[in-house]
């Protein structure tokens, strides 16, 4: 291709690479970054901004929790993911298979932590906003009704599963590409849904204690019950539509 064509493509790729969130199709930003960076792993990740203020989902989750959760917990996963990827790049360059494998835990934990929280922020929205209503006649509502009969049954099931997670973990509404149906699942620690089960994540509920302890103390059921008021169903539906393609 011509050199000017390449320049244009490079700058487009650079722009694409800097958008690290699920709002952009996953493939584009990863491939773009990998092409631009000499690092096999594609370069550094960054903490995505929230699209709302820290107090936006009160009273369900306080501004205090959102601030610490985003700027400390999620940020730490991003930092440690980048550190792990640097180690991975070094190991790959050195052809050190043992070191590559040794990074498995750190990559799953920190990479999962980054992926999970990125998805989480995007499936939340202010109480009472139009996104917080599950629209009639949409693809998502039909899919839920097909799998669970009605929306309340699905909510009850996912709530119970999320409350029952032992220790730290996540509750997920996911899309099963093999059956074409949605289903509920839980994952321990920061294990990412798609990489470890094949289900495409549609809606995530963080049930690590740090997600609710300030506001709900040990009463996880109250937190899980309340979070349904601030779920961004529009985002969940967009993800389902994308997954079905």
């Amino acid at each position, binding site marked *: 291709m011509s050199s000017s064509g390449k320049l244009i493509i490079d700058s487009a790729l650079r722009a694409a690479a800097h958008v690290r969130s699920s709002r952009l199709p996953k493939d584009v930003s990863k491939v773009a970054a990998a092409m631009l960076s000499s690092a096999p792993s594609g370069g550094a990740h960054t903490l995505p901004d929230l699209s709302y203020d820290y107090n936006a989902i009160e009273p369900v989750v306080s501004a205090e929790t959102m601030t*610490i959760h985003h700027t400390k*917990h999620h940020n730490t996963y991003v930092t440690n993911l980048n550190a792990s990827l640097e180690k991975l790049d070094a190991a790959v360059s050195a052809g050190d298979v043992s070191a590559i494998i040794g990074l498995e835990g750190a990559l799953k934990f920190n990479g999962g932590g980054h992926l999970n929280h990125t998805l989480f922020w995007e499936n939340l929205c202010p109480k009472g906003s139009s996104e917080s209503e599950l629209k009639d006649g949409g693809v998502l509502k039909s899919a839920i009704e097909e799998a669970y009969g009605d929306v309340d049954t699905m909510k009850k099931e996912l709530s119970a599963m999320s409350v029952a997670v032992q220790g730290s973990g996540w509750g997920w509404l996911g899309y099963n590409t093999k059956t074409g149906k949605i289903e509920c699942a839980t994952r321990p620690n920061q294990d990412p849904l798609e990489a470890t089960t094949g289900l495409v994540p549609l809606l995530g509920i963080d049930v690590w204690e740090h997600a609710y*302890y300030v506001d709900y103390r040990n009463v996880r059921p109250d937190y899980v019950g309340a979070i349904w008021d601030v779920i961004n169903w529009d985002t969940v539906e967009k993800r389902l539509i994308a997954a079905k393609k």
Partner: protein
Amino acid sequence: GREYAFAAAPAAANAYSLPDLPYAFEALEPYIDAPTMKIHHDKHHATYVGNINKATEGKDEVPILDLMADALEATPVRNSGGGHYNHAFFWEELAPHDKAKNTKPSADLEAMINKSFGSFDEMKAKFETQAAPGAVFGSGWVWLAVNTAGDELKIVGTPNQDNPLMKGVCDEILLPILGLDVWEHAYYLKYQNRRPEYVSNWWSFVNWDK
């Protein structure tokens, strides 16, 4: 000596009971705040006691310690029995700073620490590394424990409410000498995500006499 550190005796038929704390809720300030101690003891630990009682209803009464070896065979025993044992063990090893600062490891323990880790400080450093957020990938406990042969100390991290007494959790069964709860509920109200601070403060409240 190589004794079990603690065992809770059931009060009535199939009734494990929530042990009282050997000190007031505010006694561990400023290491741990009173609200945390209250919720940790009255809610979290109490829930484990309630659940292990439910899980062992109708079965023979055994001290909680005896349930540990085969805990991996039954999920409720692993989670709730482990939770009860671990927390009962934890409360006993802590003491208000005034008391704790005058305690120190017995000569035997100190000798074993030096033999197993080189020095007390090296043991502490290794413990703190194991207690760091990335070392246990989620909720869990960190233990200083002795092998059943009684000749070596190890530091291990265990997930959720597992402990080294349970067959299959560690490479071999180990007897806890010291344990630290690194579930977020143990420190979040005071320390939020600053777990390393919680860990380094903890040493000042360990009751080595126990």
